[in-house]
């Protein structure tokens, strides 16, 4: 089993490397001469050559790649093309905000989803199950911003319970921060949980269809024990898998939510960077998000390996 886990980790490392090559090629090689783009058509050959030298574009592509990735590894992320500030300083201000928000979202959505998924699976076809399944079906079918604008309209504008814009000055205490962030957190919890609830329910129901569950029913095992011991123990691998995959989905969700609530996080920074075509900034943020994503998928894979009784208890 540990061999398989090790193998998955190696594959994960390879994927992160592939991602970095992709980002490098997409942003630095394919679009053409960055110096030309920055200086425009009227630039003199001399100024072009000077800028190329400054940006290191006169070196061969592999050299450029390795110097970029090398700098990335030691935390030297380069200079923003737009403002001239170092990217470390830009990111450093923002990354904490994003981590803070996603951590709270995770803490709320994971237990919420598992419990609701379990409830739905325990009463299939009953009213509570129908409410949960149709509600989540609706939610996964709509864009994230749809949920957000409804929450803004009703909770912030019509009822005035919470602020519509999530601006943190940095001096608020924990609960004040949570209050300010209530809407983005609520939106993310809703969109992430919808998928998790459905997949948790499906995972348990899938197990509930197995002959060994029928056998447990025929042995006179009480329903609670059937679900909590016989079914959950077998569904735990798939559920952990689902959780990791959906936290990976947070990586995408956060982009829309930070934009709509003007929350100063990493994703908002990246979207701004895309709009101003600030390539070094996009590269750095892209690497952070994609690496997180690959790591989460890796955790999902490892979870399903570790939770398999056949692999845990070899013959």
């Amino acid at each position: 089993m540990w061999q398989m886990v090790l193998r998955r980790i190696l594959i994960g490392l390879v994927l992160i490397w592939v991602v970095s090559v992709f980002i490098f090629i997409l942003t630095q090689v394919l679009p053409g001469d960055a110096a030309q783009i920055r200086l425009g058509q009227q630039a003199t050959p001399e100024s072009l050559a000077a800028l190329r030298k400054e940006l290191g574009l006169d070196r061969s592509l592999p050299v450029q790649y390795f110097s970029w990735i090398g700098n990335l590894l030691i935390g030297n992320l380069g200079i923003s093309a737009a403002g001239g500030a170092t990217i470390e300083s830009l990111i450093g201000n923002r990354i904490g905000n994003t981590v803070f928000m996603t951590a709270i979202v995770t803490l709320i959505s994971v237990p919420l989803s598992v419990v609701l998924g379990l409830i739905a699976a325990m009463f299939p076809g009953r009213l509570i199950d129908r409410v949960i399944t149709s509600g989540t079906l609706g939610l996964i079918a709509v864009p994230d911003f749809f949920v957000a604008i409804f929450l803004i309209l009703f909770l912030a504008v019509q009822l005035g319970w919470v602020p519509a814009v999530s601006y943190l000055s940095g001096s608020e205490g924990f609960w004040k921060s949570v209050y300010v962030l209530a809407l983005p957190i609520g939106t993310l919890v809703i969109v992430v949980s919808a998928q998790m609830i459905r997949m948790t329910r499906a995972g348990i129901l899938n197990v509930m269809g197995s002959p060994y569950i029928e056998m447990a029913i025929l042995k006179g095992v009480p329903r609670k024990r059937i679900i909590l011991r016989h079914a959950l123990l077998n569904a735990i691998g798939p559920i952990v898998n689902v959780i990791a995959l959906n936290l990976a989905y947070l990586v995408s969700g956060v982009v829309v939510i930070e934009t709509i609530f003007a929350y100063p996080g990493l994703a908002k920074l990246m979207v701004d960077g895309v709009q101003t075509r600030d390539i070094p900034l996009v590269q750095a943020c892209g690497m952070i998000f994609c690496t997180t994503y690959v790591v989460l998928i890796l955790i999902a894979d490892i979870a399903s390996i570790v939770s398999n009784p056949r692999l845990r208890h070899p013959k």
Partner: protein
Amino acid sequence: MSKKQPIFECRDLKIEARPWDAPPIPIVKGVSFDVNPGEVVALIGESGSGKTTISLASLGYTKPGLHFSGGEALLLGKDMITIDAEEKRLRRGEHVAYLAQSAAATFNPALKIGEQVTESAVLHGEMSQEAANIRAEELYNALELPDPDRIGGRYPHQVSGGQLQRLMAAMALVEKPSLLVLDEPTTALDVTTQIEVLKAFKKVIEEEGSAAIYVTHDLAVVAQIADHIVVLYSGEVMEQGPVEEIINRPKHAYTKRLMAAVRPSPEAGQGIATSKEHMRDVPALQVKNVSAGYGRGANGQPAVKVLRDINVSVERGHVVGVIGESGCGKSTLARVMAGLLPASEGEVLLDGNVLKPALQDRARDELQLVQFVFQMADTALNPRQTIGDIIGRPLTFYQGITGRERREKVLDIMRMVELPPEFEGRQPAELSGGQKQRVNLARGLAANPEVLLCDEVTSALDTIVGANVIKLLERLRKETGVSFVFISHDLSTVSSFADEIVVLYAGRVVEQGPVDEVLSPPFHPYTRLLITSVPEMRVGWLEDTMETREAAAGIAGAVEITEVGCPFFNRCPLKIDGVCDTQAPPIRQHAKGHQIACHHDLDEIEESEHQPQKVLTGYERALVDEEAAKVTKA
């Protein structure tokens, strides 16, 4: 039988299916029978007869989609259908226990075996965990499971399939239920393993004094284990009575028909006289010194070698039956003949010409002459094609026949396999299992082949349907002169239908020859084990068989592919230590075309068969050993 209160009474039981978009369909239409204390009642019927559904009613349970719609299922006087859920739960496991067909699927992979065996007893407050563990260990001992003190601490995937089957029995018996429900517990097993499990069940039922409902489609098995038979057809009782009476003097037409479809036990002289009319100088298909296997190993050899040094020839117009337990390489042999699996050594000859080992290198007319008929018609027919297209394709592909001519030929072939012409435009899902198997055969015949390779074509079919397909094959053979290679694990079917028999064991031919020769002495010890393992439709057969040393030696073992020596060594009652396990057995010629691969010479084998067939006493064992030592020296 004394006038005691029955353990279980089924009174006018009705069960129906309620599809969400259609009116209810009755599945069980008013069934009544009793199970008295200490009695084993067999519910017998083919698929769709409702036998499993009825047996589950004794637990107050229906499969998803089914509902009780009338009648009573009285367990110890209480109706399991109407009692409340909590009482139902308490009675399940305590008063009535269920044994499913597949033990592998009924054990939870994530829980230890011991917990699953004892959980019901502990949860019902019957006994403490410690007492339950002791009781479980008792049962493991009684069921002759290895390591009884530790097997409970293992996970289901850590023990073998046969052991799981017996562990399931322990799980059912732990609370000493009054009624056991056994749902086809031996159907998925090989004949030799079946005896062992049957024996264990019978012994345990007798010792524990439980009553039992035994669900099966196999009359011969019923004769061994049941006291009373209920014959079911389409959710109704056709006939019921004591086992002796139903088996020897069936009254109802359906029971008679069912009995008629059961093949008699294999014996010499029951096959059809070999016909010579289609014979030619060279065999239609010949396999010479073939070895084959799966995966890629060192120096061009397969990683897992399944077949070793096989020689078989199929005369024109003959039926060659290939027999052996699962895992012996029967299907692999057919796949090598068809070219689906290229042989790693040796050659396959068609009409005396060497064929390329791989399919894609063979010419189209060579492919045409050897057709493969798959076991499962369900998966062998493309669900998106019509019957007409399925049968017509070989006509177009091999002979270029199209249009009206093709349509007429398709209808001809359908008539030949007794399919009504209106099926031409239907899709496979609209046909029954037997009809699909006919289409499957018709497709092979449409190619106008010389050899038809039939891989277990009747194994998945019900008794009567399977018997009809065999009848069809017999007729086709006479009419067309096509040769058949008929692969089956069922010796009775093969012996009534084949001209020659090839007995495979662990990838090697241990005996082959004309059917009457193979089925009369001298036998290879494995052939003998196979013959004695086929259940006879007679009460008391199981006990008689268990006395023979073949059974004693053979049933415990499993097919194991060995590199050296005789593969049957670990199960052979006549084995010679130091010889059989180290040297490949010589092939001994008996009559014309009859070969046996054994270290004993044929007289020795034949003589051993005249000895009383009993488990050897210590003295007898010593004699045999002495004899064996003599042979070793010589």
